Every structure is written in C-alpha cells, then in structure tokens.
C-alpha cells in the first residue's frame, strides 16, 4: 500500500467512530440526553486531559497494569510448564486433567471474594485472581500445541541423534509456540477484565477503583473520562499483541479461518 492509500484507509476506518462521538456531542448539547446522564463528549475530553496531565491516571494505571501483567506473567510461566508436563508425562496428565475440566467452566472472577478473604485488599490478592484466571487458557493451549507436534519431526530429530534437551528447545518449543501464543492472547484480555473486577469490588487504587470512585461521587465527566482512557489502553494493547504475534511467528502459517 502506498502512503496515500494507507491514509485513506485509516480515515475511512476512523470515520464511523468520529460519527459516533459527534452524535454523542450533539445529543448531549441539544439536551436530548440530560448531561446528568451523559456529560458532553467535550467535557469528558477536558476531564481526560486533566486526568492525564495531573498524573492521576498514570498513578492508577500503573497499579492496574502491574496487577494485570504480573498475574499474566505468572500464569504464562506456570501454565507453559504445566501444559508441557501434562502433554509429555502421563501421570501428570491423569492428575491434572480432571482438575482442569472441573475448573474450566468456572467464571474465574467468582474467585475475587475468596482472594479477598485470603489476602485482604492487596495487590497480591489481585495478582492471584489474574494468575488463576489466565492459567487455564495457557495450560490448555500449551497442552494442545505440544500434543500436535508432528511425531515425524521428533522421530527424525531423535534418529539424527538430537539430545532430549535440544529436542525440546529446537523442535517441540518452536512447533508449539503458535499455540502457546494463542493461549497468551486469550489470557491478556481476561487479565484486564479480572483486574477491573477486582478493583470494582475490593480495592483502594487502580483504574477500576478510580472509575467506581468518581461514579460514587457523581463526578460523571471524570468517570467517563477514566472509562474512555482505559478503553483506549485496552484497545492499544490488544492491537500491539496482534502485531507482536505476527512479528514473532512470521515463519508460521496463520491457521486458516481466523
């Protein structure tokens, strides 16, 4: 694509969102929707600017990101190890398989009150829920990835005298990486959702808490500004992961249909 074509595509993609925002501004200004219910977009924009400049957003955002990414990192490390162990060791699989199938349908945010009782209103409690929520997608995807490594690859590597360790780093890990990545991509938005849930229910800091606090005080322009900014962060990080995945897994064919 030329620079010009890219610009046209970007404008055409952003136009509907601009239309939606303009409609928001128009209906609130005209009084169709009371500003008690929905502040004007411009006042939300001003509030957003204030939140960014004053550093309030940064303070809360850092806490939320620390919790989300800390929990996610833990679930990746533990999940990959557990997934590998389940896929390669029979007794590990037979032990953990019933547990995974039992806990898979549990909406993990239901664990928020439990961690609240265990660890109080702390960062650790938030990280624990994020970890537990992100764990299963990583485990299940790693497991399937390792199971689907072509036997022929392993056989030929073995017959050529590859050591078990090298077999792992050079064959099994690269072959299952797309699946592991897929698990991480599923776990990332989950970690955001869980952090917000924790912060709405049991926290004194963080973006969820900030939003809830402004809502409780009735300062709605700031509440919507905080929502708006966090939505932006979530959207950008989602796009970033997609890009990162494409870069990391360039050698791998995209699975068709998705």
């Amino acid at each position: 694509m030329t620079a010009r074509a890219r610009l046209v595509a970007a404008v055409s993609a952003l136009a509907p969102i601009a239309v939606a925002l303009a409609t928001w501004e128009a209906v609130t200004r005209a009084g169709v929707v009371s500003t008690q219910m929905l502040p004007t977009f411009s006042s939300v924009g001003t509030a957003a600017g204030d939140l960014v400049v004053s550093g309030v957003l940064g303070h809360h955002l850092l806490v939320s990101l620390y919790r989300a990414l800390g929990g996610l990192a833990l679930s990746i490390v533990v999940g990959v190890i557990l997934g590998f162990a389940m896929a390669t060791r029979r007794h590990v699989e037979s032990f953990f398989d019933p547990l995974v199938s039992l806990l898979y349908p549990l909406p993990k945010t239901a664990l928020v009150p439990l961690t609240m009782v265990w660890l109080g209103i702390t960062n650790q409690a938030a990280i624990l829920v994020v970890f537990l929520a992100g764990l299963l997608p990583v485990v299940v995807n790693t497991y399937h990835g390792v199971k689907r490594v072509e036997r022929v690859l392993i056989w030929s590597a073995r017959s050529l005298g590859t050591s078990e360790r090298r077999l792992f780093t050079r064959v099994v890990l690269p072959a299952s990486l797309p699946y592991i990545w897929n698990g991480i991509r599923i776990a990332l938005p989950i970690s955001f959702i869980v952090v917000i849930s924790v912060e709405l229910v049991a926290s004194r800091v963080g973006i969820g808490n900030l939003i809830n606090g402004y809502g409780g005080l009735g300062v709605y322009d700031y509440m919507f500004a905080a929502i708006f900014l966090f939505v932006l962060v979530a959207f950008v990080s989602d796009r970033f992961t997609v890009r990162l995945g494409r870069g990391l897994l360039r050698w791998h064919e995209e699975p068709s249909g998705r």
Partner: protein
Amino acid sequence: MIRRAFVASYSLLLLAAAWEIVARSGLVPFFFLPPLSVIAVTFVRDLAEGLLAQEALVTIFRAFLGFVIAVIAGVLLGLGMARSRLIHWFFDPIVAVGLSVPTLTLVPAFVLWFGIGHESKILLVALSCVWSMAVSTYNGARSVDRRLLWSARTMGTPEGKLLWKIVIPAAMPYIFTGMQVALPISLIVAFVFEMAAGGGGLGFLEIMAARFFKSPELFAALFAILLVGFAFDRMLRLIRSRVLLWCEE
C-alpha cells in the same frame, strides 16, 4: 465403570481429602479454609432453604436474557455486515473497539443509567456479548461457498429464502463458536456486576459472605457458581451437537 470413574478422578478425591485434613488440623484458620464437610453441610442447608436456588435463578435469568439479546442482535449485525458494504464500513471499527473493551468498566455508568435492578445487568451482559456474536456471524456468513449461492440463484431462489436455507445454516458452526465465547462472558459480567453493585444474585451472595468472613457460605456460593458455569457449558455443547449434526467438526 466405577473403577474407571475412580481412576479418572482420583486427583479430585485426593485433593478433597487433603483439604479436609488440612482444614481440620488447625494449621489454617477456619475462615481461611473451612473443612469441605462443613461447606457441604452449608451448601445443602442453603439449597434446602431455597436461598441458593433463588439467587442462582436471579443470576441465570440476567445472564441468559442478556446472552439471548446479544445473540439475536449480534447475528443480525453480523449478517448485515456480510451483506451490505455500508453496514460493514460503519460497524467494522466499532466492533473492533467493542471486542477489545473490558465492558466491566461500564458498571458504574450502567448503574447511573439503569439502576441496580435487572435492566442494567441484562443490558451490560448483552453489550459485552454482542461483539463476538457479530464477528463470528460475519465470518460465518462470509465463509459460504460462493458456488452454493450462485447455483441457488440460477435456480431462482428468492433472496430471503437464500438467507434461511443457505447463509444461516452455513454460518451456524461459526455462530456456535461465537456463543461458546459469549456464554462464559455473560456469566462473568453478571457475577461481577452483582458483586460490585449489589441487587441480589449469586455474586452478591458471595461478596456479602466474604465481607462478613462467613467462609462456608462463601464457598457454598462459589460451588453454586461453578455448577451454574458447568451447566451453561454442558447445555451449549449438547445443543451444538444436536444442531450441527450435519457438520463435521
């Protein structure tokens, strides 16, 4: 049969036994981890009193109605996007944003707009689930084999019938995949909304138990949530296998 079931779930039995022993040994405080047997008694008591079933029904009603609204709206939106370039142009970026937004951030806003009763929860559930339904329906409708459409058209099939007889059946596996993504989301949103804003339901029951350190009640509510999640999951799988008999997995 019994032997096989035992072997298949020995780890669960082992963990349950370990839980009971550790909790009874006094190594951990009661509120931290009550013995499984105490939780079981609480669960049965709350169930017999009708409390659990009543709150569970409230949550299921909210989650399921929101889910159904999202399925209908999402399928319509997805089909519209697949058939009309204008609708696609307008909604494609909005769906992309909607998909990546943690809608739970809107809980305080929905409380403001719709209160803490059923409406706000049902609507937020619907808003959270609609995007994945739209995307999967769109992908499904786009995956229809062109030749099927051409041959149906050449034989004079009217457009409306084309939709019912070809496009929707072909998109059905995709729609079900969307539902499998959306259904757990519906439960998560309903539970968290109840925890954060009250208004009854299992989430509210659980958070109240946590606030008063009534651990057996907390675990009983947690198990009830697990059962609801399990039932939702099984139900969808069952329907999927019935509806998609003709489709190879």
